[in-house]
């Protein structure tokens, strides 16, 4: 056939025509290419469009507790860049938030469930219909079962000053609803410190380390979180500068974090056993006569009882439990006692590990008291929330007096309360609860609380679930009514104090709400109006109004806030309050004021604790799941759940972050070899509560017997029940600390195998 075609007549003329055409084609191709060749990329864009810079605050604030200011450049109503403030840095998460705002998987419009609950199948509805449903459901449930049948759960996603009062006011003006007490995380530290020092505010600013000879960083991951500072990077700069000036840095942590990497000494410790080490250190200090006798005589109550009590806690005993050699414990205790000023900072990891980890916090407070490491530059007494607690909404604004519901549910035990009908109260007593509806606003519900599978069971049992969020989170999948929220950039807001407590940072509205998203305030105002309590709730207040009123009301009990007005914040963007560095108890150790305890002294022996049926003295309580248990035969490995710099709990799940951070489990070479696991293998970590899949990373960064599973990735159960997302809470429990009611994640036993 080809022969014929060829034979048909390629005359010369034809040939020339064809070749001319071919040549033209090449020329056209060249022009196509040449079109871009001629121009340089810069000249092809229109430089005329105006760019405006807005002053914002990182959306991670209210959860990560730093308050890093951001600058958002906006062009044509779209954020083009998110930059750190020239003077104050923001971290990897802050820089990633443009991808949170413009993530194409953002919830865009109100939806109602169409499939089975939890399937994640929804159909779009109008806002009118959504608000009607929201309001009618509340009316219906209250009518049938009463106010105490609704669990009102505005969580960390509703952080920020603008919503602080509003989120409590709405349920209260309706007569109240069940809310949560305690917290998923550090709610035990303040009360534990208060049992020793009389106030929850017992922690120095990290800046005091500049005057320390020794800094013991006990389970704080400063490099991977922004705890105890106002702005990103502050903590590590303080540590590294101090180290250069001769301060010795010791990090105690089951995981060799990036924080530990900057230390002079890393002490790997078994999760949940920190109390044993702290009390052994006390034993060494007392029996070696290394304590500050003068300080103890003057300022400490209960020394004799404490001394008798710690005799059982020898370094040898502690070594068996913690995995830390006895001489390491002894040497550290001696160093702490003799190298004052030295600062011991009890961190957040251990305070979520073990049986009543508040006992360990108390023990750390006791150690500081023994050696007089209190109220002086270079020292730290115990634990706290920084210079001042976050601006918690003043009662005048929250209408707390209008609530008739007294029962609460611990934030860690929502699943259990729904299933069992019983809820432990802050008093320690158990109350009856009968929850029919859950309204979760900015709440992870499943992902960050212990025992995910139990929570899922509980959610399936409820009559109705309303969820308000930015994304289709694991919890959002279980909603019956799902509403799309706005990010911080789409409204005005203001950060709470950072965890150092000194900076208050304002956020200007940078862009209009995306898609059909609405701010929580708009949603609540609409629902309140629908329910006829609009005026009562202040439905006409805008975000700026809420902030102004909250600041005014807060200043009444915190006078140092008097000159922090909304106008000043709008003008200055970043406002500082309080003495820097804040070192509590300076007046007390100078003798001019008593400690805020009942006795006026530091109380190693707490009558309050005794009255509540809790140990009067800091006591070591063996973990519920540990290697000495029967359970360890089946599940021999302990987990710890550190932060990764890019994962702020479940909040920073955007495409950029996902590309940078693989979901790994860190395993010691000996444990890995025994199970034929190599780096890169898909593995399943499991126990009786659930299974989760990750990628193994064999490393010396964990001791034998410990797995490190950085936490925050999203729960994504497959049909076989194995969590494909790698979430850690399928493995954990919902046991809480009796003091403060916080979770105890870092103390469960698991096994690991190749997938």
């Amino acid at each position, binding site marked *: 056939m080809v*022969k014929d075609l*060829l*034979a048909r007549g*390629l*005359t*010369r003329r034809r*040939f020339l025509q064809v070749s001319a055409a071919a040549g033209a084609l*090449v020329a056209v*191709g*060249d022009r*196509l*290419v*040449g079109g871009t*060749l001629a121009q340089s990329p810069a000249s092809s864009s229109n430089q005329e469009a105006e760019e405006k810079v807005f002053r914002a605050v990182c959306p991670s604030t209210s959860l990560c507790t730093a308050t890093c200011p951001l600058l958002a450049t906006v062009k044509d109503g779209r954020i083009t860049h998110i930059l750190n403030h020239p003077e104050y840095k923001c971290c990897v998460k802050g820089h990633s938030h443009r991808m949170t705002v413009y993530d194409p998987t953002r919830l865009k419009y109100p939806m109602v469930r169409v499939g089975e609950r939890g399937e994640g199948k929804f159909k779009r509805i109008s806002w009118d219909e959504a608000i009607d449903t929201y309001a009618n459901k509340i009316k219906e449930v209250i009518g049938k079962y009463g106010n105490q049948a609704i669990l009102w759960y505005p969580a960390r996603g509703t952080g920020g000053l603008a919503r602080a009062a509003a989120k409590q006011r709405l349920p209260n003006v309706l007569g109240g609803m069940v809310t949560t007490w305690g917290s998923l995380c550090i709610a035990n530290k303040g009360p534990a410190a208060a049992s020793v020092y009389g106030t929850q505010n017992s922690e120095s600013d990290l800046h005091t380390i500049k005057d320390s000879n020794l800094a013991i960083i006990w389970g704080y991951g400063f490099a991977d979180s922004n705890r105890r500072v106002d702005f990103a990077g502050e903590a590590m700069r303080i540590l590294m500068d101090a180290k250069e000036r001769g301060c010795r840095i010791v990090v105690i942590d089951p995981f060799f974090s990036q924080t530990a990497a900057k230390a002079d000494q890393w002490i790997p410790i078994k999760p949940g056993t920190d109390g044993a080490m702290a009390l052994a250190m006390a034993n060494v200090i007392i029996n070696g006569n290394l304590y500050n006798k003068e300080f103890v005589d003057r300022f400490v109550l209960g020394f004799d009882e404490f001394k008798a009590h710690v005799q059982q806690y020898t370094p040898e005993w502690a070594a068996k439990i913690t995995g830390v050699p006895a001489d390491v414990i002894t040497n550290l205790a001696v160093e702490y006692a003799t190298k004052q000023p030295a600062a011991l900072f009890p961190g957040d990891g251990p305070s979520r590990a073990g049986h009543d980890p508040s006992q360990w916090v108390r023990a750390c407070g006791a150690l500081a008291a023994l050696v007089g490491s209190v109220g002086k530059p270079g020292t730290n007494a115990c634990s706290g929330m920084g210079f001042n607690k976050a601006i918690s909404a003043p009662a005048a604004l929250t209408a707390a007096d209008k609530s008739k519901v007294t029962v609460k549910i611990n934030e860690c035990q929502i699943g259990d309360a729904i299933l069992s009908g019983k809820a432990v109260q802050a008093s320690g007593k158990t109350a009856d609860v009968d929850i029919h509806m859950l309204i979760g606003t900015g709440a992870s519900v499943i992902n960050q609380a212990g025992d995910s599978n139990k929570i899922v069971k509980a959610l399936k049992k409820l009559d109705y679930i309303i969820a308000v969020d930015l994304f289709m989170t694991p919890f959002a999948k279980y909603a019956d009514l799902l509403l799309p929220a706005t990010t911080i950039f789409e409204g005005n807001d203001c950060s709470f104090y950072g965890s150092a407590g000194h900076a208050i940072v304002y956020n200007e509205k940078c862009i209009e709400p995306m898609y059909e998203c609405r701010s929580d305030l708009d949603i609540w105002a609409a629902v309140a109006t629908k329910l006829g309590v609009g005026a009562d709730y202040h439905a006409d207040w805008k975000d700026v109004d809420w902030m102004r009123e909250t600041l005014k009301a807060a200043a009444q009990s915190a006078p140092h806030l008097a000159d922090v007005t909304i106008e000043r914040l709008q003008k200055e963007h970043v406002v500082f309050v309080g003495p820097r560095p804040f070192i509590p108890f300076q007046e007390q150790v100078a003798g001019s004021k008593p400690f805020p305890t009942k006795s006026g002294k530091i109380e190693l022996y707490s009558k309050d604790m005794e009255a509540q049926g809790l140990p009067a003295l800091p006591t070591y309580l063996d973990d519920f799941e540990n290697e000495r248990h029967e359970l360890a035969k089946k599940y021999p490995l302990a987990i710890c759940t550190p932060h990764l710099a890019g994962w702020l709990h479940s909040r920073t799940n955007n495409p950029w972050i996902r590309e940078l951070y693989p979901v790994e489990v860190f395993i010691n070479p000996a444990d890995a070899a025994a199970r034929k696991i190599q780096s890169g293998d898909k593995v399943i970590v499991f126990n009786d509560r659930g299974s989760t899949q990750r990628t193994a990373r064999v490393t010396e960064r964990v001791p034998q017997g410990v797995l490190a599973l950085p936490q925050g990735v999203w729960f994504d159960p497959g049909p076989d029940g194995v969590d494909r997302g790698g979430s850690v809470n399928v493995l954990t429990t919902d046991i809480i600390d009796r003091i403060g009611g916080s979770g105890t994640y870092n103390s469960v036993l698991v096994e690991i195998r190749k997938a």
Partner: protein
Amino acid sequence: MQLQTTWGWLVAVYLFLGGLGAGSFITTAALYLATRERFKRTVRFGAWAGAVAIALGALVLLADVGKPLRAIVLFRSFVNLNSWMARGAWLLFAAILIDGLFAVFSTELLTAWLARLWLPLASRRNLWRTVLAILALPVNLGVALYTGILLGVLPFRPFWHSWLLPALFTASALDTGVGLVAGYVAWREDSAYTEKLHTALEGTVMALVAVEAAVLTWFLSTMQGGPLDAARSAQLLTAGQISPLFWVGVVGLGLAVPFLMALSQLSGVAKRSAVAVPLVGAVSCLIGGWMLRFVVLSAGLRASLSSPSLLQILAGVRFWP
């Protein structure tokens, strides 16, 4: 250990086709210059095989680059003649032209057409072919060499950084080229002298395989005894991840089988009329040739970032800029 994958199987195909085309054409040109019209069919086949293989290789290369429409405009895109990539592009272009023209002139039908355009094209075809064949030898040799030089000049890919690599690729190019032509001769050549040609070609195949085996051994032992990164790469072939591909594909199919097939024919073990034997030998040889490019590419790891200087800095050795 992670294998090199930025230049993957597509590039391996391109390098192979380039080599195969060059080798086929060199064989064909040499055959033509030596025997003229005696083996018309083989010369026509070999010429087209060469031209098409190289052209196909170029197409594969275009399919692999990020901007093929830009790349095809050679005079815009291949201007830095210090780069072996640019030199190679022009060599390819020249080879396709020369090989293609020779192939056209070796095809009666096409030559007849050309005659209609301009008589001298046809009437002087043997002159053109002679000129083209002579030009083709260095140009195609250039193509074969360049596929190896392209990799060989890269100092930070220790496994490639040796003159032995272009030597190896060229040996393979000739080996596969002769093998292809030999297969065709056994299958299709109808000249009276086919037997002699067949013997000569099979003998050449054996010699070339032996040469290639020698160069391969020399290359691998040089690498094995070289810097750590080169040795690691060599290990990948001989004992590591890609050793199955290497031993079965490159050594087995690419060297042993063609050698044995050729031997069996020359020694008389295989029946004279058994076309299958030389064909199996040819196909096997080609697969082996492709495998060679593929394993060499896959093992081309970068000199590790922990260069001595970097490690020293990180270990705290103080030295002054």
